[in-house]
């Protein structure tokens, strides 16, 4: 069992096993029918990255449409308002439902969650595979809906537009319904796994913080997603049967749709951000070589964010006609979200304080996350403040805030986690030099694209508009240039990661000196994860000297 305690070491690995989960069997069918959480995670990873590529291309097209207010390219008008509506709907719907929601839990979480708690698999392997196929079916439906009849409602499907517009709104909403069940099954599986499959000796407060984040995410997935499912069914029935719930012409209430929708979709943004925070809680102590500061505070803040997420949805309806009292209450509750978020940020910073920090690519992403998420979080407080929000509602300020949290937060954390666990997942090391260059491009390009949108938004540029006044022209153009830098960084990342699969040096078991259990098995792990059942003998993130000398 000595090797199980080699925390803080980079070498001294056992000989690499010949057979691992990637090469144990090699047929296509062995992948398609696999019950191995690691393979399902890898398939999810391929799927969500493909979705990310598609959503990203649409994002670049949205920005390109807005490069100038004549919508000209090389002297020609190349895009119409309808096409532009479809671009941003597809960008939003693909990114939200196909990419961000499943991205971290279902791909990286699937691979590392059982490894981190010393389990052989998730609780329900078949359900795990079913979840993946539901995702595939949902993705095919979503993509079909754009081919057979473009959807132009935006990803929020607000009534009455969504009940009256032509196009394949029905198919799109059913796609989201199916994707919702995929997400529910993932959450249900992970909660059960965390409850019952922890390694001997691992109590709740011995779990890595990533597990706390994924667990909290699972709670939201299980409790919020069914409400979205029934909301979309009601929307579909309203379109087909005119049941009279959302359409005011037949006695319904369009604002009720917004309540229903945001009762899911506000918690859903925590489905997106909590796993991102969970990754950062792993990266910061590992690359600071220091025990995490405030373990319990971070763990509790994940759970309290999950709970708070259910009672703040009304802040999406400040100008939609809800009562003044409700508006004031929701505004006050929204401010509470800042507390657990702040707890996390300050604990990460305290962990770094006097740590022995090294700047590998995952750590660069972690630091980028702290900067960008803090900007996104603070501007969220602006938007939670009633009087300010009335001015900023439906402007680019909201777009910028959302992207600072979702892209600057979740996507940056996802990329950090992807680099962090890449050696474990693939058994290869990526190029650190290219990693650092790409991270810098992503960080610069992201800020160019979206910080400019804060400025535009505060000056009144409304979001989703195809045409705009000349005064916004330079800022729009700057934002579009930024999107090119950002896109370059991301394409560069794709290239060097793919290249590493063939040319990357073989990864050691524990390239970063991590202390959690996934580093105690080979890279890539064997099919059953561990040669022997690991037993927890020290708390997570134990970087104190005595542990190191033990090795």
């Amino acid at each position, binding site marked *: 069992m000595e090797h199980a305690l080699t925390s803080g070491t980079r070498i001294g690995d056992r000989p690499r096993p010949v057979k691992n989960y990637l090469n144990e069997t090699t047929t296509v069918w062995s992948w398609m029918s696999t019950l191995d959480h690691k393979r399902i995670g890898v398939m999810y990873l391929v799927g969500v990255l493909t979705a990310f590529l598609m959503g990203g291309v649409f994002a670049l097209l949205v920005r390109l449409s807005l490069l100038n207010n004549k919508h000209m390219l090389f002297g020609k008008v190349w895009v119409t308002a309808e096409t532009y509506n479809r671009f941003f709907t597809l960008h939003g719907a693909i990114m939200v439902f196909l990419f961000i929601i499943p991205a971290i839990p279902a791909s990286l979480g699937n691979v590392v969650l059982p490894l981190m708690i010393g389990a052989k698999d998730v609780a329900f392997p078949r359900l795990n595979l079913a979840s993946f196929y539901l995702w595939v079916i949902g993705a095919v439906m979503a993509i079909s809906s754009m081919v057979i009849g473009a959807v132009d409602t935006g990803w929020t499907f607000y009534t009455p537009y969504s009940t009256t517009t032509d196009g394949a709104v029905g198919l799109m909403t059913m796609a989201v319904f199916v994707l919702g069940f995929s997400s529910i099954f993932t959450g*249900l599986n992970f909660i059960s796994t965390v409850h019952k499959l922890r390694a001997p000796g691992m109590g709740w407060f011995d779990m890595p913080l990533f597990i706390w984040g994924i667990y909290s995410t699972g709670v939201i997935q299980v409790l919020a997603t069914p409400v979205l499912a029934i909301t979309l069914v009601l929307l579909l029935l309203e379109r087909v049967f005119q*049941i009279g719930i959302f359409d005011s012409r037949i*006695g319904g*209430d369009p604002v009720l749709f917004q309540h*229903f929708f945001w009762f899911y979709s506000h918690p859903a943004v925590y489905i997106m951000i909590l796993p991102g925070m969970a990754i950062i809680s792993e990266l910061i102590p590992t690359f600071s070589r220091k025990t995490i500061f405030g373990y319990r505070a971070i763990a509790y803040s994940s759970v309290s964010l999950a709970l708070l997420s259910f009672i703040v949805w009304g802040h999406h309806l400040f100008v939609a006609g809800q009562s003044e009292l409700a508006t004031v209450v929701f505004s006050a509750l929204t401010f509470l979200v800042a507390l657990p978020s702040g707890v996390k940020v300050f604990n990460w910073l305290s962990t770094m304080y006097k740590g022995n920090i090294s700047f590998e690519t995952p750590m660069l992403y972690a630091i980028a996350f702290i900067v960008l998420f803090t900007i996104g979080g603070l501007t969220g407080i602006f938007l939670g403040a009633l009087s300010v929000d009335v001015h900023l509602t439906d402007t680019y300020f909201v777009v910028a805030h959302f992207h600072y949290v979702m892209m600057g937060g979740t996507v940056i954390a996802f990329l950090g986690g992807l680099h962090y666990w890449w050696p474990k997942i693939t058994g290869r090391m990526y190029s650190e030099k290219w990693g650092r260059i790409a991270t810098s491009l992503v960080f610069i390009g992201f800020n160019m694209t979206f910080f400019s949108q804060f400025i535009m938004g505060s000056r009144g540029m409304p979001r989703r508009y195809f045409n705009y006044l000349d005064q916004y022209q330079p800022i729009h153009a700057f934002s579009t240039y930024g999107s090119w830098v950002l896109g370059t960084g991301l394409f560069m990342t794709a290239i060097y990661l793919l290249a590493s699969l063939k040319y990357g040096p073989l990864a050691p078991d524990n390239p970063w000196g991590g202390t959690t259990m996934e580093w105690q098995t080979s890279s890539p792990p064997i099919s059953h994860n561990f040669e022997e*059942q690991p037993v927890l003998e020290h708390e997570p993130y134990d970087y104190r000297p005595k542990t190191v000398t033990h090795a």
Partner: protein
Amino acid sequence: MSSSTVDLHPPDPHAPHGAHGDVAAVHDDPHHQHHFTTMEQQFDTSKIGMWLFLATEVLTFGGLFLGFGLMQNRYPREFVEAHEHLQRPLGALNTVVLLVSSFTMVLAVLAARTNQPKKTVRYLLMTIGCACIFLGVKYFEYSHKFEEGLLPGRFYSHQGDLIAGSHGYSTFFSFYFMMTGLHGIHILAGIGLLSWIAVRTSRGEFSNAYYTPVDLVGLFWHLVDLIWIYLFPLYYLIT
């Protein structure tokens, strides 16, 4: 594999599920999945998963209950008038039928747990019978609504007393058909599940060492019953 390594680590008293017990014996059970240490752990895990699934069911129906409540608040008079067109005795009969079915379901689980497969199958068939009676009664109720034109949304074509120009009536029946319809789909799914475990029981697949599917389908069936317990007063007993 794990049986060879378990010996290396004495069971930890603080472990949520220590590697104790007759490991060799449980590994003989064909139902034992490789990633669980004991059958007990496997059973508990399945049960947690089922309860979480039931939570999603409650929230799915919760959305409809909320919508119903809001619309009832909007059209209090219309909803009372519309509910007069539901057949209260049939609704009450179905309530009794489902309560009985929950009772036979409990007996089926008990029989499975005490190694009495024949009894299990008998009680499962009785439960399925109740479910079929429920759907039969529902069929008569639905036919009656169809004849009277008391249909959801734009299909509403009632020519009797409920045509006072309010959207409240058609909205009432929209919700009536959505909620009892979704519940009916669950009854159908329940019949499928009950039949599946009845077949597996008659093949002798279950014993006191492994009867997880019977237990879980039982939980599902009780939820389906419970939802009806709420639907009945919601629709049939409005004042």
